[in-house]
């Protein structure tokens, strides 16, 4: 069995074909003491690594700004999950409409490469995407929208999918969810309709196995795969964090959803390395250490030194510059009408 086959599963069409447990690249399972040695990432383009690093350093900069008391409210970083939107980026087109959620910085940055606009939005400064009204969780830009309510976006995305199907331009409505999102009834209502009406809806599940502080073992009976099967919806589970593998396995299914106007669920087995919002992580140090063994960052830093170091140096300085520049901008102007 090849590495690629081990790294994903599909259902319901070809259930059993890759009937192995979902694993990280090779021998080790998530709980295996051998996992640390087992992790390996294939070489990626500078462009991809740079984008991964941009998201990582953007999120770290936010946590730093919070600790300095320079940010208000809350923010949800996607540390550890950056590779998902970066991997999917070339599989999306201009015609696609992306829906994001409360943990959406990576989704936005992968779509637009606009850290200035996003930071300005979060800091309420001139040049903000939404004038500082939406903040971290409520962003709207052509073909991209995020909201702060769990599950709500799946129903809205279904409406957009209906529009895209009628427009006939092979556009896809894409909605990012977490494992916790699947506690909401509206997800099931929308999924049912999307399959009944054969709508081009891609639901991505970033299953980091924790919703705020509640492990999914306490929140989800059954599985995402079982849910997909119940609705007879095409399903792909991706355990690999390797961008190349993800693209290889996801590309044909996304193309199929797009061209045949059918819903698709892709579940990523992923890790949230940071807290839910700021300093509210209740997981043990051992657990966090274990999760860090899957971090793309560590691997590329240690194994692709020549490529990694100059890129990181550049991105780090770039983000530092942006933070200083945005901070110095005037506050946004907005009046309700």
């Amino acid at each position, binding site marked *: 069995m090849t590495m690629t086959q081990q790294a994903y599963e599909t259902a319901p069409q070809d259930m059993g074909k890759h009937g192995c447990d979902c694993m990280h690249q090779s021998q080790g399972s998530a709980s295996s003491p051998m996992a640390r040695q087992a992790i390996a990432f294939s070489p990626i383009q500078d462009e991809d690594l740079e984008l991964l690093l941009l998201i990582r350093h953007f999120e770290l900069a936010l946590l730093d700004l919070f600790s300095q008391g320079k940010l208000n409210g809350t923010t949800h970083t996607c540390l550890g999950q950056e590779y998902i939107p970066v991997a999917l980026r070339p599989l999306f087109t201009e015609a696609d409409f992306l829906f994001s959620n409360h943990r959406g910085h990576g989704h936005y940055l992968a779509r637009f490469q606009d850290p200035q606009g996003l930071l300005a939005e979060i800091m309420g400064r001139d040049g903000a995407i*939404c004038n500082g009204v939406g903040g971290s969780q409520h962003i709207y830009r052509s073909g991209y929208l995020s909201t702060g309510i769990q599950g709500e976006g799946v129903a809205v995305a279904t409406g957009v999918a209906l*529009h895209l199907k009628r427009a006939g331009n092979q556009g896809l409505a894409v909605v990012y969810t977490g494992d916790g999102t699947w506690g909401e009834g509206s997800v099931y209502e929308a999924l049912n309709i999307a399959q009944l009406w054969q709508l081009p809806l891609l639901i991505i599940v970033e299953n980091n196995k924790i919703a705020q502080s509640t492990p999914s073992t306490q929140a989800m009976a059954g599985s995402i795969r079982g849910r997909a099967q119940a609705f007879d919806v095409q399903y792909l589970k991706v355990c690999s964090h390797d961008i190349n593998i993800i693209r290889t396995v996801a590309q044909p299914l996304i193309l199929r959803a797009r061209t045949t106007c059918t819903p698709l669920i892709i579940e990523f087995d992923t890790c949230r390395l940071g807290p839910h919002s700021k300093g509210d992580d209740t997981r043990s140090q051992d657990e966090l250490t274990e999760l860090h063994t899957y971090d793309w960052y560590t691997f590329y830093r240690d194994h692709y030194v020549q490529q990694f170091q100059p890129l990181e140096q550049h991105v780090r300085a770039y983000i530092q510059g942006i933070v200083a520049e945005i901070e110095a901008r005037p506050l946004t102007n907005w009046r309700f009408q």
Partner: protein
Amino acid sequence: MKTIERVVENLNAGLHALFAHDPDVFLIGEDIADPYGGAFKVSKGLSSRYPDRVFNTPISEGAIIGLAGGLALSGHKPIVEIMFGDFIALGFDQILNFATKSVSMYGQPVAMNMVVRCPVGGNRSYGPTHSQSLQKHFIGIPNLRLYEVTPFHDNTMLLDTLVNLGMPSILFEDKILYTQPVYRDGVIDDLFGFHFLGTEQEFASIVPEDLDVCHCLIIAPGSMVARCLTAARQVLIEDEINVQIVVPSQLYPFPLEPLVEYITAAERVMIVEEGVAGGTWGCEVAHMIYSALWGNLKHKIRLVHSQPSIIPSSSHLERQIIVQAEDIANAIKAEVCGV
């Protein structure tokens, strides 16, 4: 001979007219497809004539209203039919946190043209979860306008306005009003006629012939017209009390301006609605009148609404809870004659 048009027919004709001239209009809801045509037949004929724009859905109010939000976001003008208005509660999040918020929460105006139609009201023995008048729960939501069908305002014009507001709206439709006649040409009966007030026909004003002094001005939405008329007729005949009834098409925000001269001229002002007591639409309107016209009112405003109770099924019990014509007549007499 002119045939009598019922309100349900006028609404249905309004939808047909809208579908005929605006290709962006959609209808989404449960059991709306022909031959059923909706639980109250408001949607009859639409799925046959416009099969690609009428979507018969599963029982999923949250997804239905969410779907409408997605269509509105894409530039369409969806109309949602909620079978019984009570079920709108299942889609409240999509109205409160998505459709209305999206109009302004992204820091730039986002046009969200969508209408949620809600059959409401009791007196039909449908019981506690199929009889409510839920208007009050939607008052004060930014970027949400509330309207109610009346037997006076033409629904073709109204629906055309609603799908082009740039923001979501809810249209409340009284279930008993569906079966009642539409009034045309200022004529109601031998005692009462009507005319419109305001440049946009904001209100229908019902007055007895030769009204000189208005003893009691009643502000009431479409659902209460028949009951208010019965009461007005009774107090006119029995006690020579002149009642003027003004009926808004738009409930919220309440368009006070066209009413100012009538409110200040009236001896008494009463606001009548079917919703149960507590945080009512009438409270909102009364507060608005007090704020604008304090010092110009001859008496305090009287609110008439249903009892603070669930709505029982059996009609003899239901009548104890829901405002009836005699309750309105008694309230008028109590105010005007002090009895």
